[in-house]
């Protein structure tokens, strides 16, 4: 890459930067080639009638999604969201203000779908959909991580993520797909996970893992694959199988199941919690990816489905699985009934690994040796999709309390980052929403600025040396960008990495 990527300086005052128009207009994620596009059934680059396809798709989505329809109309340009996006704070490009990002589409919506925009485009900021506009869409709708932080502050709850998703769906329909996300989705359809790990590789990895853990603990802790009749099917992000620090959390899940005596299995056919269908805003793709999980659950005959540490995966699982594939309660339609009969409804379906671990800890079925984590001074990063797109437990806000409860149960030193950067107001890591690709590294480094500032404060004040989270994308993103801000990349890790160190195994 021609430009040197470096971290922006920390802000002296915690306020929005002065706008720098055009600062990120050149940021462009690699485009999907015709092969990738056709794998997902999308048209390829240079499709002749891209304009009509785009407008047609937009009309279709306006009729299918109330969110899009209402959000296109309701914005009053009040600016409450304008300083809330981490990409704006990190880049100062005004088109990274949520309202301006929405306006990229709203201007076209007004031109083609509203009377004032048809009659007086200059008055209401309406414009024709040209190739240049489409290019601008592509660049700036791939500078949104769909983290929903803006939606917290909008007086009408306008969620830019919904608009970004719609924009990407329209772009795909016009042959303008993103290489990173679309390639990954195709891999899931073909093989079953984002990384394209086939079953033999998975078997190999898990056997190696069992040996490593045996060496470490002296115990036969299993990482079972494709075991029919297991109690739990664990659906975890495929990064957990080999990436650092992800794998330490996978070891943690294995130890929890082992200590609690719960039989469990992974599935080779459905070896991915991640669902990039949400990122590209395509319902059919998202559903198709999720259907592998229903199929695996039915084939393996499991009673419970548990999801590993992954932010957007948990949003899809918690908020959408019941809709998409009937994993959940209360389905009365024939499609989900077979699955409903099989699942054990004494447990929440699906369940987050943190819900499972915390429940076992509360019931004293698993216990911890907190001192094992005394070398760590810990803070917790709320991952955006967990914080603002899902929940845990039986009460509002469980998604914040349960992971923290676990951290506090397994370690002695815990400090919160500054208010306004955690819980529902947490800052995205800067790499979510289909942006975790090296062609967007400059954006990712800049977008992590607000989180890095908050982290720096607790590092300075309390000597924090470990930031726990429950998201595979956060883990990969921070591992990459922490060094740009002068931190050790091992500062980031999973909650179950801490569980793994502290859980009592042999003496139970």
């Amino acid at each position, binding site marked *: 890459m021609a430009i040197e990527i470096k971290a922006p300086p920390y802000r002296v005052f915690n306020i929005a930067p002065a706008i720098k128009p055009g600062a990120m207009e050149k940021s462009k994620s690699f485009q999907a080639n015709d092969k990738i596009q056709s794998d997902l059934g999308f048209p390829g680059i240079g499709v002749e009638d891209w304009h009509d396809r785009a407008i047609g798709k937009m009309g279709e989505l306006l009729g299918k999604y109330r969110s899009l329809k209402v959000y296109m109309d309701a914005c009053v340009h009040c600016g409450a969201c304008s300083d809330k996006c981490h990409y704006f704070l990190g880049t100062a490009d005004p088109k990274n203000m949520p*309202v301006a990002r929405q306006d990229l589409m709203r201007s076209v919506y007004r031109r083609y779908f509203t009377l004032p925009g048809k009659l007086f485009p200059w008055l209401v900021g309406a414009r024709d959909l040209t190739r240049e506009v489409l290019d601008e869409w592509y660049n700036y709708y791939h500078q949104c991580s769909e983290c929903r932080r803006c939606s917290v502050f909008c007086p009408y709850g306008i969620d830019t993520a919904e608009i970004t998703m719609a924009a990407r769906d329209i772009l795909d329909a016009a042959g303008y797909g993103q290489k990173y996300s679309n390639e990954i989705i195709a891999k899931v359809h073909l093989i079953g996970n984002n990384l394209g790990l086939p079953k033999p590789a998975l078997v190999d990895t898990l056997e190696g893992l069992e040996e490593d853990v045996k060496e470490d603990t002296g115990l036969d802790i299993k990482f079972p694959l494709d075991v029919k009749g297991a109690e739990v099917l664990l659906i975890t992000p495929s990064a957990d199988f080999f990436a650092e620090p992800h794998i330490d959390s996978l070891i943690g899940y294995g130890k929890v199941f082992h200590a609690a005596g719960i039989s469990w299995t992974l599935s080779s056919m459905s070896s991915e919690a991640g669902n990039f269908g949400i990122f590209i805003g395509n319902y059919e793709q998202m559903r198709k990816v999720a259907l592998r999980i229903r199929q695996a659950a039915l084939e393996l005959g499991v009673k419970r489905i548990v999801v590993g540490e992954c932010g957007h995966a948990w949003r899809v699982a918690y908020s959408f699985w019941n809709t998409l594939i009937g994993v959940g309660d209360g389905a009365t339609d024939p499609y989900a009934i077979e699955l409903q009969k099989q699942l054990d409804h004494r447990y929440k379906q699906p369940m987050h690994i943190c819900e499972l671990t915390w429940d076992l800890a509360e019931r004293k079925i698993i216990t911890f040796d907190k001192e094992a984590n005394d070398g760590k001074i810990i803070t917790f990063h709320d991952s955006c999709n967990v914080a603002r797109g899902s929940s845990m437990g039986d009460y509002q806000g469980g998604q914040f309390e349960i992971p923290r409860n676990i951290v506090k149960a397994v370690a002695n030193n815990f400090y919160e980052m500054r208010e306004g950067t955690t819980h529902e107001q947490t800052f995205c890591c800067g790499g979510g929403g289909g942006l975790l690709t090296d062609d967007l590294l400059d954006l990712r480094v800049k977008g992590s600025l607000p989180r890095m500032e908050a982290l720096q404060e607790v590092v300075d004040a309390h000597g924090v040396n470990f930031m726990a989270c429950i998201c595979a994308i956060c883990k990969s993103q921070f591992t990459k960008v922490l060094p740009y801000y002068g931190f050790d990349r091992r500062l980031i890790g999973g909650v179950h990495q801490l569980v793994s160190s502290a859980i009592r195994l042999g003496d139970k």
Partner: protein
Amino acid sequence: MTMTIMFAVLFYFAAGLLTVGLIYRITTYARTPAPLKIPTTPAPRTRAGVVMLMAREVFLFQSLFKGNLWTWLFSIMFHAGLALVLLRHIRYFIDPVWSWVIFIQPFGIYAGFLMVAGLAGLWGRRFFVDRVRYISTPSDHLMLALLIGIGVSGLVMKFVTHTDIVAIKNFFIGLMSFTLHPLPADNMIYLHLSLIALLMIIFPFSKLLHAPGLFFSPSRNQVENSRDVRHISAWAAKLESGK
């Protein structure tokens, strides 16, 4: 008499368009499915909780309060002022006047100042905050000009020029029973009424749709119970049966 007829026609037209336009918009919003559960969490898990959340959004602008204190302050001033002014204006459409309308009359009069001050603050942000200046379109400015024009022309009639308010009341009560009573020949009332009619006409085509829109915003109005109740839209259910 020409002016009386013109304004009568104008107000029938504006009221008709406002009613039909809003009904059309609201039915469109209501009919458009929301295929996925997307409340911005943490969100209430019961319908009653959602009603409470909505009440806080509608009356207190809770999210805006979290977002920007200045914008919140000016918005509350404007909207609360406008609400009082509108309630006070009920007296021009009913006879005898309800006692609570008589009670709020003094508050309603001064609320006009609150409303205009709030609008001025909101307009100021469009010039002085670079981010808000960047996103402002001509229509954003004109909308504020229109509302300020309505507020100021009303205040002028109340505190400076005075107008034949009894005749105006007769005109509107007449309109409501389809009889014409003469509108007093007064430029300030012509201005005030024209701007109001214009506002009514553009309402269903403009960002003023934020008012009904809020009630249909899925991130705010959905109950967060996705694991307990299957939520599925008609078009998505068709995918199931097609499988």
